[in-house]
């Protein structure tokens, strides 16, 4: 029964069934008598942190090793990326490109983008030895259930390359960062 219910919901999903989907804001104005699906599914509503705006996550052990690679030593890479300001700009552009990319935009729907921008900045900043530590989850648990394919991963790489290129990061330095990220594919690609 629940499978049929879920399939019916898929069919009713405007994001997949209608090209001109209404913006989420209008969808939030639920009509009177609407079913409280959160209650039906037993989903607890998450309340954003009043200060950071991030949604709560299940507890995990914080460790820089969760970043999935060992950081560079020395200032060269951080300089190539324009320091923390440059890394923040690149990460912001990278996330913007991803959520606008029709190949992978769906993966980011319903995700806490505030937290993503923060943890991704921390990860890059940490790996580039630009004076940060990484407080996010490890690559396997942070990508669990996203259903990322090899093609999705390639789209991410292309968007990151574009963001780095637009910020004038030398190509060899771009590749040195990608060399840290490429072996993470085993934890990111799920299907």
């Amino acid at each position, binding site marked *: 029964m629940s499978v049929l219910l*879920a399939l019916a919901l898929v069919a009713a999903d405007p994001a*997949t069934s209608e090209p001109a989907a209404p913006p989420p804001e209008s969808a939030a104005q639920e009509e009177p008598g609407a079913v409280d*699906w*959160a209650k039906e599914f037993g989903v607890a509503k998450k309340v954003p942190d009043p200060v950071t705006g991030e949604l709560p996550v299940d507890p995990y052990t914080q460790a820089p090793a969760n970043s999935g690679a060992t950081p560079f030593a020395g200032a060269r890479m951080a300089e190539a990326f324009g320091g923390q300001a440059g890394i923040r700009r690149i990460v912001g552009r990278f996330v913007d490109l991803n959520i606008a990319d029709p190949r992978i935009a769906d993966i980011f*729907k319903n995700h806490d983008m505030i937290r993503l921008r923060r943890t991704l900045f921390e990860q890059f900043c940490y790996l580039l030895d630009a004076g940060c530590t990484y407080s996010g989850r490890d690559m396997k648990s942070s990508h669990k259930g996203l259903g990322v394919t*090899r093609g999705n991963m390639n*789209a991410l790489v*292309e968007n*990151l390359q574009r963001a780095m290129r637009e910020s004038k990061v030398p190509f060899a330095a771009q590749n040195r960062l990608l060399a840290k990220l490429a072996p993470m594919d085993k934890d990111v690609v799920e299907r």
Partner: protein
Amino acid sequence: MLNPSSGASARTRRRLAVAGAAVAAALLAGATPAQADPLLDGDKLILTNGIASIEGASGGGLASWSTIAGMETDRGIGLSAHVTGIALPDYGWESHGVAVGIRDRVELSYARQNFDTRKVGAALGLGEGFRFNQDIFGAKLRLIGDTVYGSPWLPQISIGVQHKRSLDGAIVRAVGAKSASGTDFSASATKLILSKSVLVNATARWTSANQFGLLGFGGPKGSARTLQFEGSLAYMLTSRLVVGGEVRTRPDNLGIAREDDAHDLFVAWAFDRHATVTAAYVDVGSVATFDGQRGALVSLQLAF
């Protein structure tokens, strides 16, 4: 690489519908996804399909690589087509071919080589402008590894087979070849070492081909296959521009003419996601007693 929160907002029906789809996917556990992937997914990273080698297999131009042709990933099918021209002091070369990549795992290729002897043809008594022609049917299987991803110490490794059929059987036997057709077996390892922006390939080929098979297979100096080496070293200038060099050793079976190792220096430019143009300086040494065959190669590849 990414750290989206798993927090599921339950504020809108639309979002819940997505959650419902996730529940359905979890319940169906591996059954057909809500949206099927396109057959020609075209999601391979640019240039990681390689460029067509002169035998039609995906590679670096002269050498076969472990790469699989086409722009598909492990969830689709890719198609590739190429045309290559080589101008040598005494000869002309034109080849063209097609390849299919299946799930970035299997490559099936076909190429036709047309080798114009120009004035040499008259000197050899074949007639001016005589052309040696050859069909090559290839298959390649990726065993393990990935050119870009995974451990930097584990290259992408493939095995390949190429069945070559000279269309000039009587003539290639007259010059001393044992057979007009032959089959090459190969094993390749390819890795893009991102930390250095360098791509390295090494291929072992077990072959008895004379001048890639255009002059048949085997001869007075040897009729069995011997192990030959193909090496490529390339540097990535941008994600779409690569320069490199290759070396390819070859058997020397024929009595009437010496055969040398082949070399090239190339630049490959993916000017579009689906199109790569390659220009190279090629040195194939002595061909049918005419030494110093060094010239220019131009190749265009379309890939989907």
